[in-house]
């Protein structure tokens, strides 16, 4: 199968959906001629014109608001939010308006919009351009949240998001834009709420989101050499969350680590670990472990930044302890 970059996969998904449905359009800063600073959208304005690929002023709350109104009235906007850190600026329009409109109207109004943005540290971009803020939106009922872990997921999830009748937030890892993966030429969609077992294993389950899937896979390789068989699962969407697939795995392996690049405290790892613990408690040999990013603003210095996020070695070390029966924190 051909291999394409995550960037190209997103571009294809949007182009295909824009061809299919004339009500789909793109909105954001420097999305047209520039194709975004990451060049993810290059070429789209040439095909679809400036009426459907629209450069906005630097007004994040404003253009997200516009998207909500446009979505309520017959179109399907895709909003490009240049950095995930800017989501703080648009929370009101996203969480007080987009997320609640369908419910508050008793089901009469829909907001079929996509907010695509990014996440991911270690790019030396410091505290305001490196955050992974998916936990915030996952907490708000009415929003769906997708976290593609490769070009394949990026394309399939984006297409599903565009066709969804609800506001969907997609977090792409900006470190992965140039990563290639096999992506079929033929059309496909990836349904929301269906986790992907990236690698089968029997001793421990590694549940990982976005780029942490690669980290988990590398950890699994390390562990394999030591005779530990790790199962790697990518939930793909955290809202809705495919609990069943995760539970099935954990019931089989009896041990799990949840790995995510958001800050660990009050982030998504606690939720996933809790759901597993609640429903598979008596299958567990050890508490479900969590590895999130450190609870610090992301530092600029390379000497500091790299230690803030989970690494394959760190995951492998923890897996080793869990499988070796070491009772990590447990008193």
């Amino acid at each position, binding site marked *: 199968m051909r291999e394409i970059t995550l960037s190209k996969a997103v571009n294809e998904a949007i182009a295909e959906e824009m061809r299919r449905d004339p*009500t789909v*359009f793109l909105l954001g800063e420097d999305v047209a001629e520039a194709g975004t600073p990451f060049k993810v959208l290059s070429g789209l304005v040439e095909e679809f014109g400036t*009426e*459907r690929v629209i450069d*906005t*002023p630097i*007004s994040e*709350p*404003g*253009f*997200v*608001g*516009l*998207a*909500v*109104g*446009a*979505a*309520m*009235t*017959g*179109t399907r*906007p895709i909003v490009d939010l240049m950095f995930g850190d800017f989501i703080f600026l648009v929370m*009101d*329009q996203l969480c*007080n*308006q987009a997320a609640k*409109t*369908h*419910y*508050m*109207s*008793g*089901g*009469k*109004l*829909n907001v*079929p919009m996509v907010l695509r943005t990014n996440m991911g540290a270690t790019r030396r971009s410091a505290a305001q351009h490196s955050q992974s803020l998916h936990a915030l939106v996952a907490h708000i*009922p*009415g929003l*769906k949240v997708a976290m593609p872990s490769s070009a394949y997921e990026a394309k399939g999830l984006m297409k599903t998001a565009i066709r969804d*009748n*609800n506001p969907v937030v997609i977090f792409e890892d900006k470190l992965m834009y140039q990563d290639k993966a096999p992506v079929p030429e033929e059309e496909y969609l990836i349904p929301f709420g269906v986790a992907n077992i990236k690698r089968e294993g029997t001793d421990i389950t590694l549940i990982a989101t976005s780029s942490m899937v690669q980290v988990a896979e590398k950890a699994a390789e390390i562990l394999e050499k030591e005779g530990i068989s790790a199962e790697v699962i990518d939930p793909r969407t955290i809202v809705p969350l495919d609990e069943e697939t995760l539970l099935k795995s954990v019931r089989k392996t009896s041990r799990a680590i949840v790995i995510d690049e958001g800050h660990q405290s009050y982030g998504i790892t606690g939720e996933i670990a809790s759901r597993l613990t609640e429903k598979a408690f008596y299958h567990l040999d050890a508490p479900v472990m969590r590895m999130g990013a450190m609870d610090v603003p992301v530092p600029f210095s390379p000497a500091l930044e790299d230690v803030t996020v989970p690494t394959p070695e760190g995951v492998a070390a923890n897996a080793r302890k869990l499988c070796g029966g070491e009772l990590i924190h447990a008193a």
Partner: protein
Amino acid sequence: MSKTNTEDYLRMYTQMVRIRAFEDNANQLYLSAKMPGLTHMYSGQEAVAVGICEALTPEDKITSTHRGHGHCVAKGANFREMFCELLGKEEGYCRGKGGSMHIADQGNGNLGANAIVGGSMGIATGAAMSAKMQKNGRVAVCFFGDGATAQGLWYEVMNMAALWGLPVIYACENNGYSEYTKTEEIAAGSITARAEAFGIESFEVDGQDVLAVNQLTQKLVERCRKGEGPFFMNLKTYRYHGHHVGDINRDYYRAKDEEAEWKTTRDPITNFGKWLESEKIVTTDELVEINEKIRKEAEDAVAYALDAKYPDVSEVDMHVYAA
């Protein structure tokens, strides 16, 4: 003034009276503890909602505010579904999920009342954007208060509306107050100049004069449909009640005399009624009859709503996500 528009005039009069009647009943429901939550009365501002909405078609969109009953009535809503909504009943426009602060007759182009001050400015502008993209000739009117002009969002969306020539009319209901504060104490410079600075053609209008409001809106709507939007209207008006129904002792921020003055000399309904009589468009008896009919309609709707049933508890997690 042409007198061939009798029907229009009567409808405007009727709609203003309907708003007043709705609010009087809502206020009563609240005071008698039959209505849950809290609510903000539109009384006094009727000429704004009616003057504007009468210039729109049901396909044109409006966005509304926390003081939204008036817009909802003016855009064509029924009393029954409205009172049901206010009481949290299943037959309410939002199946009881929205209540006073989110009331909307969505079928008539009302995109919803909003409890975030200024929160719908983007939505209205986005509705105009999608109208332009879909070339369906629709116009969007964004209602908001003078206090809402302090929200940064307005400047962001005005900029985009102006850049892209969107068919949106920003209608500022300038009732002089933001909650318990005179807006002049919290608004520097000129609100109208702020819109003009974005290159938006702006108008200051007497918001108590339903004909003035209506005639201006008709012109602007027509121009919007031709691609000449956006526009800004600064409508001077007044709210008769407190900021919300519980805001009773308000001498500390608003003089009783001022209230009395507006009510006695500038009431939009009284004055329009007088004009209709003086122009011989209606007789006093006809006006009384209209008022009487509406009073009855409102009472019936209240009784209906009080009796109506609540949504089944199973509805609580319905409508979180659309299918």
